[in-house]
């Protein structure tokens, strides 16, 4: 039985330093199961650093991170979490690997060390490809894909692990608007239909305020707000972007975007 109001990620007084200077200062927030969280803030503000520290890929200076109620240093069920890094798609395009092979790497875990993938694994791979709409290009080499296709392949690789939380670091930077819109739609589906908690770094403020349930503004300081129909984005965003920031945004612009097409 999964509690819907369960706290899946808790951060308390987290400080993170990189090469001597404090990048994230005194961050405290809670993420509940099924939250759909947008992480916004200026470049260099510490969004990626925050992700890396939560994932244990860089050390925190002080503070506490709890994942599924367990202290991060002793947490070991990493298969419950998936991460798509900012530069995932910038890999050597000559690497000999097909989309299907790439996604299958998401099924590699401690539990099947030294054993070949089973039929279930390959079913899960095809499901993830299908969900991301790239089943038809499964046998293509990843190096031949367009940016949008590559990105969907890497998200499929994350999804194939059946994670409970997925961290996406700017998954759709540099992709055309229509593709971006389809991508956000997919992520909404994932959040509502599969109940996956999503944390996504994004520069698309309209998408964040239209689609997501929480927003974390990161600019050394970290502020969290729930997003509801009466949230004023500007009061939230000024925390991160400064007093003179003005984001032109009308709630009614969102109206059409919540529909499933």
């Amino acid at each position, binding site marked *: 039985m999964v509690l819907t109001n369960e706290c899946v990620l808790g951060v308390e007084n987290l400080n993170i330093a990189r090469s001597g200077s404090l990048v994230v200062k005194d961050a405290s927030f809670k993420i509940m199961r099924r939250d759909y969280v947008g992480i916004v803030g200026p470049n260099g503000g510490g969004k990626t650093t925050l992700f890396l520290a939560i994932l244990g890929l860089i050390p925190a200076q002080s503070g506490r991170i709890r994942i599924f109620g367990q202290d991060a240093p002793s947490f070991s069920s990493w298969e419950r979490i998936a991460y798509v890094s900012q530069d995932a798609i910038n890999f050597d395009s000559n690497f*000999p690997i097909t989309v299907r*092979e790439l996604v299958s790497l998401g099924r590699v875990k401690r539990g099947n060390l030294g054993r070949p993938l089973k039929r279930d694994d390959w079913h899960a791979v095809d499901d993830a490809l299908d969900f991301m709409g790239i089943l038809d290009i499964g046998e293509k080499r990843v190096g031949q894909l367009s940016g949008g296709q590559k990105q969907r392949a890497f998200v499929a690789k994350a999804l194939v692990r059946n994670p409970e939380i997925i961290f996406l670091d700017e998954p759709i930077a540099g992709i055309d608007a229509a593709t971006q819109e389809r991508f956000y739609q997919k992520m909404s589906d994932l959040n509502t239909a599969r109940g996956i908690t999503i944390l996504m770094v994004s520069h698309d403020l309209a998408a964040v305020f239209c689609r997501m349930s929480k927003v974390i503004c990161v600019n050394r300081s970290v502020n969290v707000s729930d997003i509801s129909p009466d949230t004023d984005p500007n009061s939230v965003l000024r925390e991160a972007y400064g007093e003179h920031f003005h984001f032109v945004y009308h709630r009614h612009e969102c109206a059409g975007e919540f529909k499933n097409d």
Partner: protein
Amino acid sequence: MIDFLPALLKLLGYQFFQYALIGGVLATLACAWIGLFLILRKESMIVDGIAHTAFGGIAIGVFFSINPILPALLISAIAVLGISYMRKKGLAQSDSAIAVMLALGFSTGLIIISLAGGFSVELFSYLFGSILTISYADLIIVSALSITALLFLSIFYKELLCISFDEESSRLTGIPVEIISTAFNIMVAVTIVVSIKIIGIILVIALIVIPALSALQLRLSFKKTMAATVILGITGVVAGLFLSAAYDVATSGVIVFALLGMFIISALIGRR
């Protein structure tokens, strides 16, 4: 040219040629396969470094009259671990760490040789390879070590692919990246030492790098690239063995030319 085929068949009847064929094919299987992972990890120059370092071990073996493969194996394994230690501790980048080990191993070899009173025929055979004169004892060692490397690669191939593709995200999957990488590095040392017997220290890198590089030209899936690597490597080595035995020219040189032939053909097919 007319009696070429009967000459080849006659070769197959000789025991020395059978040994060379078995040892060559097994070592090439391991070399070609490990080379693919090395190229994908952009670490192929480690081969040249380790092969030269192994020369120190070979010299020790010759000097003390023990089978040189064994001390070479030990020195190479230490060198591989030393390189990853220097890299991890920030003492040196990969390429400069390799350079240090290469110099250390090779100069150890030179000092020991001068103490022993100069180069012998046996030492030359390790520098340039001597597959056609491989002894039964060496064949057993070469086969056992090749099979060990092949077993390791076939058991952990999906983890190795995962790590070669993206080391950071592999850590998140919970697979023991450090242990597998260290074991892989030791297998690299094993494979290099084995192929010294086949093709010699100076040309080992060809046997490890060219088959995989040729297969990569074909732009296939990972599975098919692995298969192509092995097929191209074995074809090159077997062709080289036959040609060198038939025309009595240096085996290592002919093998490298045969492998380069495979590379050119693959590149032409890949560019179409």
